[in-house]
């Protein structure tokens, strides 16, 4: 099987996601990053969008070349100019602005950065300030490019940072000559709510990592429900596949019903768990696993190409 030429359609963006945490997103993302160039003959940029608990760097071990702060614009009130009219307090949907006694106050942590208070303040007493939501790091692990987001501990609004990291990646791609733009792997946060949905927003296709256990299948079904309406191609990697049982059949049946292709099945092998515990990459566990990862990379890339042709 030959990987289709990529340049005609530009770099592909593949999100690796799952409903359940611990299903193997980072294992799969790191494995794909490691074999991407040899399997697909394309450069690759590995992006950690699991900003609450970023782990991809622990396996790829990139050298970080730059780190920048990511901020959310939040309001600052000029108490002298403020007339205490209360328009900001009334409009704020998040309880982030109030007047306590005679003091106008912004609860920085509650602010979603929507800017509506600035827009409605009749006295022009509010100006934009900022709150640090986390950091964005750039680096490389050999030929593998790396970008990662890291949420500030105590920050509640991870989607803000996820969007900032994704925008940073798009800006990086736009700065490169078209022929040099790498394919992008987006290691996404677990779950199916706003952080996960934000993380897959720029992806051309979504690779769902599913575990054939009752918890795994249940959360996989939630993920399919959440991601199907996005209209992107979905495909499945089964992780910890092994003991035949009820849940394996349930997973297969769900994939059949939703017409989701299963691109690979990674066995439930203690050797993989032990390698993971030592920070080793799946393709380095054995030649058999390296072949499996290459095949997965080729199939995942083909999924996007075929969708673009269709």
């Amino acid at each position, binding site marked *: 099987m030959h990987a289709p030429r990529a340049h005609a359609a530009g770099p592909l963006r593949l999100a690796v996601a799952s*409903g*359940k*945490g*611990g*299903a193997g997103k*980072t294992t799969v993302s790191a494995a794909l990053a490691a074999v991407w160039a040899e399997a697909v003959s394309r450069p690759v940029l590995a992006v950690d969008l699991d900003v*609450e*608990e970023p*782990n991809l760097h*622990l*396996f790829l071990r990139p050298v970080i070349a730059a780190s920048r702060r990511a901020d959310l*614009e939040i309001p600052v009130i000029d108490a002298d100019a403020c007339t205490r009219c209360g328009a900001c307090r009334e*409009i704020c*949907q*998040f309880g982030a602005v109030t007047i306590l006694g005679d003091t106008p106050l912004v609860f920085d942590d509650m602010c*979603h*950065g*929507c*800017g*509506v208070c600035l*827009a*409605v303040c009749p006295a022009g007493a509010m100006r934009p300030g900022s709150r640090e939501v986390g950091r964005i790091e750039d680096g490389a692990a050999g030929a593998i490019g790396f970008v990662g987001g890291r*949420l500030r*501990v*105590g*920050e*509640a*609004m*991870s989607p803000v940072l996820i969007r900032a990291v994704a925008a940073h990646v798009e800006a990086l791609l736009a700065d490169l000559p078209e022929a040099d733009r790498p394919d992008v792997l987006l290691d996404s*946060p*677990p*779950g*199916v*709510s*706003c*952080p996960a*949905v934000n993380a897959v927003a720029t992806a051309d296709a979504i690779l769902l990592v599913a*575990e054939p*256990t*009752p*918890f795994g299948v*249940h*959360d996989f079904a*939630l*993920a399919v*429900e*959440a991601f199907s*309406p996005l209209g992107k191609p979905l495909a499945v990697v089964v992780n910890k596949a092994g*003991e035949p*049982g*009820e*849940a394996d059949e349930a997973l297969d049946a769900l994939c059949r019903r939703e017409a989701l292709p299963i691109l690979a099945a990674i066995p439930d092998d*203690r050797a993989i*768990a*032990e390698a*993971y*515990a*030592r*920070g080793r990459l799946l393709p380095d566990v054995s030649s058999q696993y390296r072949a499996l990862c290459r095949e997965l990379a080729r199939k995942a890339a083909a999924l996007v190409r075929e969708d673009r042709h269709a």
Partner: protein
Amino acid sequence: MREIVVLSGKGGAGKTSVTAAFAALAENKVVCDLDVDAPDLHILLDPKNTVAEEFLSGNLALVERTDCDGCGTCRDVCRFGAVTLGAGGKAVVDPRRCEGCKACVALCPRQAIAFPPRVCGYFARSETRFGPFVHARLDPGGENSGRLVALLKRNARELAEKEGHELILCDGAPGIACPVISSLSGATLAVLVTEPTPSGIHDLLRVAELCDHFRLPVGVIVNKADVNPEQADRLEAACAEKGRVVLGRLPYSPDVTRAMKARLTLPEYGGPLGEEIARLWEAANALAHACAKAR
């Protein structure tokens, strides 16, 4: 009243299996699933007589197409990229992106945007073989998980007070942001389930730092300890150095998955793992009692 929240930072470390086991062992409690995004505890607890209610939270911008003249103000003020000008040049709001901030509603020159309440999921109260169970589900792609977690905790406390339960046992969400922060408020003890892997340790440190930030005591369980025993030793030493209590270890065991497939908690499934988790529960419960007393 004691309130124990089981967390891990990293997903898949074993939070739900541990919480379910504790639910089987603890007496006189309300069990609560705070992982509203991808709840799994009900799979083992088999809830019955469920009474569910819609979870309404915040509002959603909705353009009244007949009144919209396509001026684009709403699109320009939206910081979340939720508004586009669609067919006929009229504004369309993507509900998945709408944050419910009301900026477009307030600034639309023709007042053409409605702001109805938003259904974000449901919350429920059920009976289980281990007593009352409070749980919920956020709609896929949904928002406001922190508010739903706060609502569940309020429900669990009301129920505990009304029926005289002394313990609330909560299964938390992975990560360290919105729903996790919300799950810490008012808790007595956070039980942190980790594993001796690079990501398990990395994520444990971040969630432990979050607990420090909110001055919440923690007790650590090292799950799958034998996949890397040296790392497990170092992990425990690092906890001791910071004064964090280590409750104990659990081995990597296929029994966890077998019990799950049988829809049983570990003590019900039996075997050596059942005995080990019973010792961990005694340690966690004793620590929670001590923390409650210290308050």
